[in-house]
Each structure stands twice: as structure tokens, then as C-alpha cells.
């Protein structure tokens, strides 16, 4: 260790990975992982969320999973909770769609309307 900046470097690098253990705030990505979700391909969706978040170095975003959300025909489903906003439910997700959701919704705050349950129901 030659300098304080090196220490800061390690601090930032590790904080990313341990931040999870701090209080639950910020954006929460919840992937439906009931049998229906898993069968429809929820796992690659979950993994690509983790991948994208890591790639973009996003802080304060957690990815969790939940059981069957109830509309099995729309699986894989993903719900995104942002503090102070209504939850947004995305349906029939794929790893490709995840990239757009992360970029437009999580980073820029605009939900991708065409992937949401509202758009499909119409």
C-alpha cells in the first residue's frame, strides 16, 4: 500500500459487493421464480439482470426473486420497485429485454411501456 488512493480503490471495489448487507433501499428487481417462471426461463433473465447491473456498476440495486406472481402465462415476469414510485410489472421477459429495461428504466427512470403487463393486456 503506497497511497491513500490505493486504499480508496479497494474500498470502492469491495463496497459494491458488500453493499447488499446495508439497509434495504433503492431499486428492487424482483423476478418471479415459481415453477412456472423457472420453466419459462426466469433464470437466464435473473442472471442477465445481475450481469447488466454489474456491467454498469449500479449501486443500490438489489435483485431478488419471488414465487409465482399469479399470471403464469406471462412468465417470466419481473417487478421493479423504485422508491416513491408505483411498481412496474414486466412480462415475458428475455435477456435481450433485460438490457433495455436496465438502461431505460433503472438507469434513466423511464419504464419500457411496451414490455409491461399493461401493454400486453390490451
Amino acid at each position, binding site marked *: 500500500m503506497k497511497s491513500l488512493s490505493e486504499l480508496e480503490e*479497494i474500498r470502492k471495489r469491495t463496497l459494491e459487493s458488500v453493499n447488499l448487507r446495508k439497509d434495504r433501499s433503492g431499486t428492487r428487481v424482483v423476478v418471479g421464480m415459481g415453477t412456472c417462471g423457472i420453466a419459462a426461463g426466469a433464470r437466464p433473465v435473473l442472471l442477465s439482470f445481475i450481469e447488466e447491473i454489474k456491467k454498469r456498476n449500479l449501486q443500490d440495486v438489489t*435483485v431478488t426473486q419471488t414465487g409465482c406472481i399469479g399470471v403464469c402465462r406471462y412468465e417470466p415476469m419481473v417487478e421493479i420497485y423504485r422508491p416513491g414510485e408505483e411498481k412496474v410489472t414486466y412480462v415475458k421477459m428475455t435477456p435481450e429485454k433485460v438490457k433495455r429495461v436496465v438502461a431505460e428504466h433503472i438507469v434513466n427512470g423511464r419504464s419500457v411501456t411496451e414490455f409491461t403487463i399493461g401493454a400486453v393486456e390490451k
Partner: protein
Amino acid sequence: MELYRSHVLVCGGTGCTSSGSRNIMDEFNSELEKHNMQNEVKVVGTGCFGLCEVGPIVIVYPEGAFYSHVKVEDVPEIVEEHLLKGRIVTRLLYHDSIAEDQEIKSLDEVGFYKKQMRLALRNCGVIDPENIDEYIAFDGYKALGKVLTEMTPEQVIDTIKASGLRGRGGAGFPTGLKWEFTRNAVGDKKYVCCNADEGDPGAFMDRSILEGDPHSVVEAMTIAGYAVGADQGYIYVRAEYPIAVKRLTIAIAQARQYGLLGKNIFGTDFSFDIELRLGAGAFVCGEETALMASIEGRRGEPRPRPPFPAVKGVFSKPTLLNNVETYANIPQIILNGPEWFRTIGTEKSKGTKVFALGGNINNTGLVEVPMGTTLREIIYEIGGGIPGGKKFKAAQTGGPSGGCIPAEHLDTPIDYDSLTQIGSMMGSGGLIVMDENNCMVDIARFFLDFTVDESCGKCPPCRIGTRRMLELLDKIVEGKGEDGDIEKLEVLAKNIKASALCGLGQTAPNPVLSTLRYFRDEYEAHIKEKRCPAGVCQALLSYFIVAELCKGCGLCAKNCPVNAISGERRKPYTIDTDKCIKCGVCMEKCPFAAIIKQ
């Protein structure tokens, strides 16, 4: 560094380790591999979470699910249900962590943690103690960097002085002053030592800090080295703490590898290194002069002071000696400033204190509270009260050097001075709770038995005096007490306090004096009425059968090992008290609770 979506924190403190948390970690790893999730979920061994009563403990983030009493057999279920499918395994959740709406409460809202303020324990149960990067992530070694690049040694000492921090080892000497004395002492070489020879029965806070956050002590000692002008540190730790020793060894090696120990730290001309010295389990080695003798490789015996260690310590050089918990507070004080620290606690005792809760209490474990918290809050709000709804009788603080606090002082705000005033002492922080079924004479005898055993034998008041006191107490609990015994105890106690060589001897009579002060009637009952009011002292008890309750089933007679019980079926039985050996088997076996002892 890999990014994981979920972290599984498994407690690796001594309590949980001895109930199998290592195997639980292994099982998590192999189950995760089975489900091919090893790259998504990280398993971390941490230090003590504090709530040892419900261990082994596993916490899963980001949900913050607090699983208690986890068994190896439960792991596949947690992995499959919670980590794979996202359904929290409610049956294993700690009961107090579930809110009324079935949501999981944040840890800060759980009764056990709500009133706590974790400074010295801030990283325990949060980081992996064997990974220096995680310590750094939570601002570790930042204080050292600040000290070495922005502050002079005098400024460091002034900061500690201004914070009002007092030694957490028991006596409460102002830490900043100690640092200043050591800095001002003349000497070509100086040492910084850490007292991790925690020996009080029932105390385990230093152990938990070393096991859960060893780097905080390493960092603080390095800061102290810079402040007092030392280049060598020793941590004197008990060999009976294998996990603490192992993690300290790892921590020191990692710090050396990162250049946070060794030559020219942070590119400055300051160099410092730390070595471990293992104690062989002598209680007296927690006394500072004996500890230093032991570090030098000599027999662990105290010597008269002055000269104090700050003037003449290890290898006759000026030495700074602080306790583990004291050190654990230092980095935070440097980072947040002395004013911040002064806002916590009472007028003369600043900051927090860690207590090891034990005895008759629901939440056995480790708690850290601001100074000035009352005993009632600690026992009833954090500790969850006394099992079986029994009545609180007294709490022992300060272990064998301290005294008991009776119910009338439950609302005294706890700090160094208030405890001394009511005849006890802060001590290192062991807090043993006693209920109505504890005999205070027996408790005093227990602690004195401990000090007699641990007396090093160098000075007669301690070697002979405490033994004479123990003999008197033995006499009393055996029902052979006489008039005048209490007075003899008092005279002996006074003389030992005044004449013993070191702290061990000077404080040894405290448990007797404080129980005499608050529970003199119990001593008198033992001596005059030959009766133990709490029903503990075997020699003073007899077992009786209450005729109205006895149904004459004969179970007691059948189980009595000495055939002391006789009677006719369906009629009340009787116990021959001359034959009875007071084993208590009959009382246990009686289905009608018809047998009493008094």
C-alpha cells in the same frame, strides 16, 4: 470482485461455531453448487451477531431474513425455497424478527437490537473477518491513512483526549492521558500492547471483537504506535481463544501484505509491526504488570506500581497498554471526530459499552449500549427478561472483581461512576443476571473460589487472606456459621483491599462486600436460622412430602437411591431426613409436585 445477488451470512463466533456453524457453511456451499448457484449467492462467515441464545444464526441478504437455531438439515430447504424460489422459510425465522403483518422487520427494529448502538461491534456480523477487503469497504484503515497523512502525533492524542474515551478493561482510566504519558516518557524504544487476556467468568466481548473484527484492533494499535512513538506492538491473547488467535494471525498477515503493517506505511517514514503473544490461561495475566512480565517470557506475576507501564513497561521500556474494546473505538473517533463521540453517553463516561449478558436471562448474548442505559433496559428490553417470569434478584457486573446490583438500583443509569457508587464496578463488561432462585452467599462463594484458585501467590493478603475468607463462606453455606463470622469477613475484606499487591487481590473481596451490603439478611439466615432462603445450599435443605398433595403413588420411593422414602400405597409417603442425601430425584419424579425443599 464478483457481484452476487444474495449474501448468506453465517455466524462464525465461538458460540455458533461450537453449535456447528462451520458445517452449516459447508452445507450451504455444497447445496448451492448442486443448484448451480455458486456464482449468484455468496456464503460469508462473520463474527458474532450478539444473539448467541438463538444460534447458530444465518442472515440472508438482501431480504435481511434472520434465521435462528439453524441446523445442517435445514440448509437444503433454505437453499431451495429461499435462494432458488424466493420464498422465505418462515418456520426458521427468529420469532421477534417477524412483524404483525408477517413482513420481515429490519434488524434495527428487532427488540434485541433496537436499543443497542454498535460502535465497537460495528463490523461484527457484517463483514467477513478473514477478508481485509471487506474491512476496508466499511471505511477500514481510512482512520490510519488520515492520521499518518494529515495529523501530528500530538493532534491524535488531543483527539482521543477530547473524545473522553476511558479504558474499557474495567478501571476506566482516560485513554488519551495514557497515550500522552507514554508519548512523553523518555525512551529509545517504546511498545504498544493490547490486553486480550479476557478472564472474567462470563465475559466474552473482547473475544467477539477479535473474532468478528480483528482489523479494527490492528488498525487502532498502529494509530497508537504513531501517536506514542512506538514501532512494535504485542497482542496478548489467551490461547483458549483459538478462533480469535487464528483470525488475528490472518489479519496481521493480510495487513502486512497490503503494507498496512511494516515499513513506511502509506509511503510515510512511519513503520510499525504487531506480534501475537499467547497467554496460558492465568487470570492474573490480565493485570497489566503481570501481562507484561508474561510477554517478556517471565512468570506472570504482578509487581508494585509505580513505575507505571507508561514509564517502565515491556522490556523496561515505556509501554502503552489498552484493552481490545478500547482500541476498537479508536478508528471511529478519528474518522467522526471527538465531538461526535462526546454526544454519546453520560457526562463522565462517553461512548458505548459492550456487555456479555449471561445467567438467568432470555437473550444470552452480546449487547452494546450507550453509557447511561439503565440495567432495566438492558435486562428487560434487550435481554428479553428472565426465563419463566421469575423475579429479578441481582445482577453481577465486573465479574470476580465487581459486585452485585440489587433490584432497587435497576433504574440507575450505568456508567463507570454510578456503578462504583453503588458498590460494584464496570469491569470488563460481564453481566450475570440472577433471579430469586439464586443464593447470594453461594454466588459470593463462587467468585471467591475463582479468585483463590487464580491468585498467583506472590503477596500474602491475596494468597492467604482470600483463602481464609473462602473457608468462612464454606462454613456458612454448610450450615456451620457462627455469630461473628460476618464481622470476620468484613475485617478480612477491608485488610485485603488495603494491602494486596495488585488489582486482582484488591478487588477480590468485592463480591462478598457487595452481597453483604445488599443481602446481609441472607447471610444471617444461613448463620442464625441455618436456612438458605433461595433453596440452593444443599447442606441447609431438607426435602418434605406435603401430605395433602401426595396421592401415594410410590414413584418417589421407587426412585430414591438410598431408600429414604417409605409409606403405604394410596396414603401419603414420608421422607426420613436422616437417610436422605438430598439428591432431588424424588422431587423431579413426583407427578403431583407434592415434594418441596426448604
